[in-house]
């Protein structure tokens, strides 16, 4: 190995740190003898001041970096509750006659306005044509919104008021990550929404977007994306500034807020 003025820098640090093999070291020693200025350079290298790190400078707002999502252990806690709840609902409906005027029934579910389903009694309660519910002010809502949706069937016209048929509970799988690309028909803009099972969220909007729109979009997206978590509206709003892990990317091109809201409202339950 020939060490010369052109390549000596490739070896100098290894020479100083003692990482050259014996042949290379010997070659470098000879080279330094012929080039004392390189020896001076090595002395400069060794005695060069070290830039001190100012450890008092810290990243203050670490909470925005932390994973805020519920752990899977929470899901394991919720899952048995769902099973028990589903069983309880089914038990109640198959063992009690219930009279319940439909107009008093309060339905707190995103699918309240879903299309009515044809008679599916046979599928869930073979041999029973209709179940009547007697409670006066029943509130029907999914026990664990993140893993079940409730679909309501067509009410029957009973002899003493309206009755409803059994509820159909449809499990919804938690998927590792879903990407929805929504391409509105009229406009050219594209919205990409990526959500993750742990319910983190981030909103990235291109430069130049009005900050009010950005804030409103963040609010709206988080409310929709986080709906399955079971957090109350107040909790979701409180968490808005912290939840920067669910990745929500909006590409905004010539869009106004009304259109954006519409798109997200429409697609909110399809994550």
């Amino acid at each position: 190995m020939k060490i010369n003025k052109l390549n000596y820098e490739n070896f100098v640090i290894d020479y100083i740190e003692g990482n050259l093999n014996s042949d290379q070291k010997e070659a470098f020693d000879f080279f330094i003898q012929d080039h004392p200025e390189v020896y001076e350079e090595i002395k400069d290298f060794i005695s060069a001041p070290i830039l001190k790190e100012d450890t008092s400078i810290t990243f203050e707002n670490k909470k925005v970096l932390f994973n805020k999502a519920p752990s899977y252990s929470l899901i394991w806690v919720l899952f048995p509750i769902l099973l028990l709840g589903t069983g309880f609902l089914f038990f109640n409906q198959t063992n009690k006659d219930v009279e319940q005027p439909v107009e008093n029934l309060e339905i707190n579910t995103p699918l309240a306005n879903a299309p009515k389903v044809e008679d599916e009694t046979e599928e869930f309660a073979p041999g029973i044509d209709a179940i009547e519910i007697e409670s006066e002010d029943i509130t029907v809502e999914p026990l664990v919104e993140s893993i079940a949706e409730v679909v309501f069937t067509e009410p029957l016209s009973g002899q003493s008021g309206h009755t409803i048929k059994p509820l159909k509970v449809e499990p919804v799988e938690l998927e590792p990550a879903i990407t929805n690309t929504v391409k509105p028909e009229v406009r050219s803009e594209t919205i990409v929404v990526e959500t993750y099972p742990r319910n983190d969220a981030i909103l990235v909007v291109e430069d130049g977007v009005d900050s009010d729109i950005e804030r409103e979009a963040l609010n709206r997206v988080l409310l929709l994306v986080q709906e399955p978590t079971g957090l109350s509206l107040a909790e979701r709003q409180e968490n808005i500034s912290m939840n920067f892990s669910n990745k929500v990317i909006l590409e905004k091109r010539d869009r106004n807020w009304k259109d954006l809201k519409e798109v997200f409202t429409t697609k909110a339950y399809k994550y």
Partner: protein
Amino acid sequence: MKSSEYNEVVLTVSDPLYRYALKLTKNVASAKDLVQESFLKLWINREKVDTEYAKPFLFRVLFNKMVDDKRKMKRIQTMEVLPEKQIDGRVYNEEREIIDQAFEQLEEKQKKIILLRDWNGFSYEEIAEILDINLNQVKVNLFRARKKMKSIVTKIDSSYNKSQR
């Protein structure tokens, strides 16, 4: 990487990552953004990144993001840049100031290598990986950077001594 391990990385790496970004950008908002975006990328890739590689991963992501931002900044020159001597409201002492002046005269690549090596203790191989250059380039640039710093500090010292006489 598990969630708990990710949070541990936040605790241990966010500060040095922020200092690295702040030193190079001299802009608090940019440095914070860079750190947040780097951690977001780590979170998204947490299944693929082992905890032990999280630190070099973060520095690599931050470096790439800085390169991207720099390209954008060539088009939009609107960033508010803090005065060199006052970052994050801190005032440097004289010796640190001199070394800092010397550091500022280094080439960009040399600055990055110095910070990765001296502040964060990365190996030459890790630095090569983070900056996407070969091992020899790391060593040669580090050698030149230190020599240059020594030479600049010596010059500043001697001119200061002359002015004191």
